[in-house]
């Protein structure tokens, strides 16, 4: 296992967001964490990335316990892991190239020429080389997402954490982003942990699916097991579109038709 999470808890004041979350992420796989809004998916991902400090529980990365208070261990983890924020978190005062160069410049001993070369390569791989001198605000939403991915992969990480990468996108763009993740995951061989709401797409792209609810994992298994699970909550979540169409049909049947002249 590349990442093993056991019994993670996290509270904000009296609000217990995570009450004992377990997750196992094998090497080179795409693992997706599903859940309703406000169930703590992003908090969980931020705990993994070290942005939030868990109150209890353990995280093992490549067999070693991750201690956020040990600077050397933290630096080692950051070197091998990247985080893709929901809203990209690009540096708006830096150009696309400078954004990609930043992690290499600040965390490696590479020469300036090597940093430039690797950054341009990453931009080229994500088809952004013609926009190297553009600022993030001059790029479209999809390009910004690709730029954020270029910045995430330029350090050649083993693990990439994606926080709702398709939030607010239309279905076509959503598919394009998922395609992009899978394409580069295959190309670069990193392990991906994706937090999202998009059930249908997740079943296609994931190797493992986990469902977070009430602060803990309600389900963890393969997409096939998720599709056939008889657990009530899993069924409700998975078949939400079907449930919606049933509710609407029932509503239409029970409502008296409106007069045409009203």
């Amino acid at each position, binding site marked *: 296992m590349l990442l093993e999470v056991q019994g993670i808890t996290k509270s904000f004041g009296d609000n217990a967001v995570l009450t004992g979350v377990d997750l196992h992420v094998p090497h080179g796989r795409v693992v997706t964490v599903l859940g309703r809004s406000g169930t703590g998916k992003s908090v969980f991902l*931020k705990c993994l*990335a*070290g*942005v939030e400090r868990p109150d209890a529980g353990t995280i093992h990365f490549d067999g070693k316990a991750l201690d956020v208070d040990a600077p050397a261990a*933290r*630096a080692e*983890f*950051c*070197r091998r*892991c*990247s*985080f893709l*924020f929901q*809203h990209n*978190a*690009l*540096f*708006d*005062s830096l150009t696309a190239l400078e954004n990609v160069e*930043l*992690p290499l*410049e*600040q*965390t490696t001993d590479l020469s300036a020429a090597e940093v430039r070369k690797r950054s341009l390569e990453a931009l080229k791989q994500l088809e952004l080389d013609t926009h190297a001198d553009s600022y993030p605000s001059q790029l479209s939403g999809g390009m910004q997402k690709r730029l954020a991915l270029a910045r995430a992969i330029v*350090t050649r990480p083993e693990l990439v954490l994606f926080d709702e990468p398709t939030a607010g996108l239309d279905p076509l763009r959503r598919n394009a982003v998922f395609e992009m993740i899978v394409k580069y995951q295959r190309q670069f061989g990193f392990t991906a942990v994706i937090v999202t709401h998009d059930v249908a797409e997740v079943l296609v792209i994931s190797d493992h699916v986990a469902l977070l609810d009430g602060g803990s994992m309600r389900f963890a298994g393969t997409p096939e097991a998720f599709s056939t699970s008889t657990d009530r909550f899993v069924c409700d979540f998975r078949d939400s579109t079907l449930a919606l169409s049933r509710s609407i049909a029932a509503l239409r049947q029970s409502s008296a038709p409106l007069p045409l002249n009203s």
Partner: protein
Amino acid sequence: MVRSVGAHSLSLVRGLGDFAVFTAQSFRSALTTRKLFRRVLRAAFEQGARCLPVILIVGTFTGLVLGLQGYHVLNRFGSESLLGALVSLSLVRELGPVLAALMLVGQAGSALAAELGIQRNSEQIAALETMGVSSHGYLITPRLISALFVYPMQTALFVAVGLWGGWLSGSMLLGLEPGVYWASVERAVEPDDVMECFVKAAVFGLLTVSLCCYNGFNAHRCKTATGARAVSASTTRAVVLSCVTVLAADYVITSFLL
């Protein structure tokens, strides 16, 4: 009431401690931050070149007003020849460091607090931390280091144009002999005065830039507002606290150095 006073006192002490740790952590990060020199130069440009016009304009008018007021007051006692001493000592000991610091807070400090607040809001600071880049080292340390030399330089410039403004109003407009004015300046200003001026400027720079960085960096901890309003509130707080701190620190330093 006692409970409320106690809670506020505790909150103040906690805030001061947090601020001290923040500043210390930023200086400590200087040891581990890569490409620091380039970032320091960039910060020096933001605090220096961009603030130059306002320093030159305010310095000139301060000197003009000092020359004008000083000449008429000294004229009552037949001591116009001391105009240079009055203008130079006022500028070097007090007005130069204080007004230059206030101008820099208004121009560079407010921009700094707002920029950091927006970076916090848009998760740019969190992004740095996930990359393993010290957010203190990358964002705060260069600004603190540059403040230590940019503030004294800007103050020196402020004093120089202020002296020129005093000469302009005293000699060019009111007819005092230029040689008398400059000789009075030369006789009045001692090396200790210049040292006091630079010490004050460096201390004001350190305090105000730390305060602006601290407030912008912690915009997400604002209790009264969130989002854009938190950025606005933290920027206002940074500027007000910095201005009050400059005046309070001026009194403390003067009482020690006099």
